[in-house]
């Protein structure tokens, strides 16, 4: 009966954050607690995943905080989608934290690094689990607040400037999100996502409220999610923030925090608003597919344009960067485009299969990008740690002095390029497959999606091959020749590289999990039933 495991990851992260906050005076104890906490987090997530069982039963669990029944109290929901996101985030976070323990200088660790890091995980976990739209806002803020500080962590000129841009854009974003939540609440009378889904699907049964404004209000919300995900034209904060943040934090920002925006898009637009009872669109060029999800039909082109713009801006921007972090940051913009592209296809998909395929492709790509970009940022950090610079003009020939590190970077780059059998290949393949299936089914614009994806993929090859040539091959300068890569840092990088390879070879598991996640995202009724169906006072019931 007790389903405390649903809230366990969040609690573990929270308790760890507080514990590390209180033990700041005791440096070693703090680090130990922090690492133990992240292991505990990993364990809690593993427990949750095993209960949800995305490879088998695909349970949906809901948990009523404070014991108040949904939709009145705050509900947190664990389904295959959340489990998928949590699982890979937990792994990347643990890697980043272990990396940090020997990367961030001890003073910085003592000041605030560990509590902030764990608070960030609290925010991320809360966002993945929450079933309440305002609560989502709160966890966004928790995540953002910690990321603000972590971006400005080194407190130098470029850090402060980057953080300023990041902060201002996100503060405006928060206000916009409030506006959207207020409007949605006023229109539909609820904040609970499941309740919201139920209401927008059938307004007549809930006091016959006006459904039309929901689309515009959800658009406000979409802009906020796009901002978090760094999707063009909201990508502006990305390059400088990623450059400024310490390497493991960049790894987290690119690998995990961005994915929260993606998750929110999937959850809110596919699960909650997907069946909104809007039957036609009056804008020219928008057609509504037969199964009647006009709201998604509106977002199809929107997401497509944003994804395409991201791919182009990110891809082009990355080519001539002369530092690794800058390249990776621009690359992140482009890769997020790759994640959203199949979502755009899913939004306009004519059949359920293609929709599932599109969402699953996005999830797989998100996972791959999380791992690969996380690895690459960590590798960049290790390079910086060993050489003292990560600018290409001062680098070269790293394969000679740091072969393992270089190999790790190579694997990460190949994963993003999409070389099989690394996990990245399947991400790219599924994106192509989603677009291809849509194309075969005659969906307008799917050929353009294929074209954009192809252009983006080629740009990825272009910038990574350039980076490889300039940083890892060539005549090593003195600094590089004397480079001494820390074993502990390189070990993390290599471990992630192995993980990427393993994920590719054993991709069947990933695919099943992603499919389960996509199906959970689209299984509106299952979600509603899990949250509202068995909700009787105390703890909510979970069922398949």
């Amino acid at each position, binding site marked *: 009966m007790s389903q405390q495991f649903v809230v366990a990851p969040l609690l573990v992260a929270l308790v760890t954050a507080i514990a590390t906050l209180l033990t700041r005076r005791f440096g070693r104890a703090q680090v130990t607690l922090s690492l133990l906490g992240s292991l505990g987090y990993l364990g809690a997530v593993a427990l949750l995943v095993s209960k949800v069982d995305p490879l088998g039963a695909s349970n949906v669990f809901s948990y009523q905080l404070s014991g108040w029944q949904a939709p009145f109290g705050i509900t947190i929901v664990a389904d295959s989608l959340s489990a998928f996101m949590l699982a890979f985030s937990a792994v990347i976070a643990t890697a980043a934290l272990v990396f940090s323990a020997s990367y961030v200088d001890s003073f910085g660790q003592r000041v605030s690094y560990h509590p902030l890091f764990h608070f960030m995980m609290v925010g991320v976990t809360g966002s993945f689990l929450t079933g309440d739209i*305002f609560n989502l*806002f*709160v966890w966004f*803020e928790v995540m*953002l*607040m910690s990321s*603000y*500080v972590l971006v*400005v962590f080194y*407190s*130098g*000129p*470029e850090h*402060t*400037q980057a*953080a*300023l841009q990041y*902060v*201002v854009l996100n*503060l*405006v974003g*928060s*206000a*916009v999100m*409030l*506006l959207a*939540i*207020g*409007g949605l*609440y*006023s229109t539909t009378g609820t*904040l609970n996502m499941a309740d919201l889904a139920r209401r927008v699907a059938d307004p007549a049964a809930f006091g016959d409220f006006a459904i039309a404004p929901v689309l515009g209000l959800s658009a406000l919300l979409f802009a906020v999610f796009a901002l978090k995900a760094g999707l063009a034209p909201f990508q502006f904060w990305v390059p*400088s923030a990623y450059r400024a943040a310490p390497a493991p934090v960049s790894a987290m920002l690119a690998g995990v925090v961005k994915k929260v925006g993606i998750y929110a898009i999937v959850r809110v637009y596919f699960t909650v608003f997907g069946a909104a009872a809007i039957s036609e669109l009056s804008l020219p060029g928008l057609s509504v597919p037969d199964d009647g999800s006009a709201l998604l039909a509106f977002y199809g082109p929107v997401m497509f344009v944003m994804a395409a713009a991201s791919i182009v801006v990110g891809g082009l921007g990355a080519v001539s960067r002369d530092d690794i972090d800058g390249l990776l940051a621009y690359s992140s913009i482009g890769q997020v485009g790759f994640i959203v592209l199949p979502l755009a296809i899913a939004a306009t998909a004519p059949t359920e299969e293609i929709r599932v395929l599109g969402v699953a492709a996005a999830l797989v790509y998100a996972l791959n990008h999380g791992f690969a970009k996380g690895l690459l940022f960590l590798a960049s950090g290790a390079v910086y740690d060993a050489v003292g610079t990560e600018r290409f003009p001062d680098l070269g020939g790293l394969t000679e002095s740091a072969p393992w590190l270089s190999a790790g970077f190579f694997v990460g780059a190949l994963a993003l390029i999409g070389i099989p059998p690394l996990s990245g290949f399947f991400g790219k393949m599924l994106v192509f497959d989603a677009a291809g299936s849509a194309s075969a089914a005659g969906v307008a614009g799917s050929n353009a999606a294929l074209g954009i994806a192809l252009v983006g993929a080629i740009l990825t090859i272009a910038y990574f091959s350039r980076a490889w040539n300039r940083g890892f091959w060539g005549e090593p300068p003195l600094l590089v020749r004397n480079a001494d890569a820390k074993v502990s840092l390189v070990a993390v990088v290599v471990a992630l590289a192995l993980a990427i390879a393993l994920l590719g070879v054993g991709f069947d598991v990933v695919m099943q999990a992603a499919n389960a996640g996509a199906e959970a995202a689209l299984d509106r009724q299952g979600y509603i039933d899990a949250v509202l169906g068995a909700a009787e006072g105390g703890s909510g019931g979970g069922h398949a």
Partner: protein
Amino acid sequence: MTQFVLAGVLGVLFALGTFLVLRRDIVRVVWGVTIISQSANVYLVTMGGLSGGVPILSHGGHGGGHAVSDPLVQALVLTAIVIGFGTTAFALVLTYRVYQEHGTIDLLELGEKA
């Protein structure tokens, strides 16, 4: 009629906030952000209805007596105000640090330096 006035007021407040966010002076940008988030809070409160009665029930436990304005939005706004406070305070200190690091709070100058 009144909702048009309200909409107008909020529209103007957001517009002014936006205008300030686009200025060169970081302090003004922070003002702009403050105005925008306060306006968002006001909006949220009005969404709960303006004239329902204080959502505080008399002591002792006989609830549900009189109509009250939506307490939920008030709770939400309270949370939002607090969060907004935390972030604004951070933004201010950050402004100060930007000035220390760059010797200017002119965004134009900052941008050209970058």
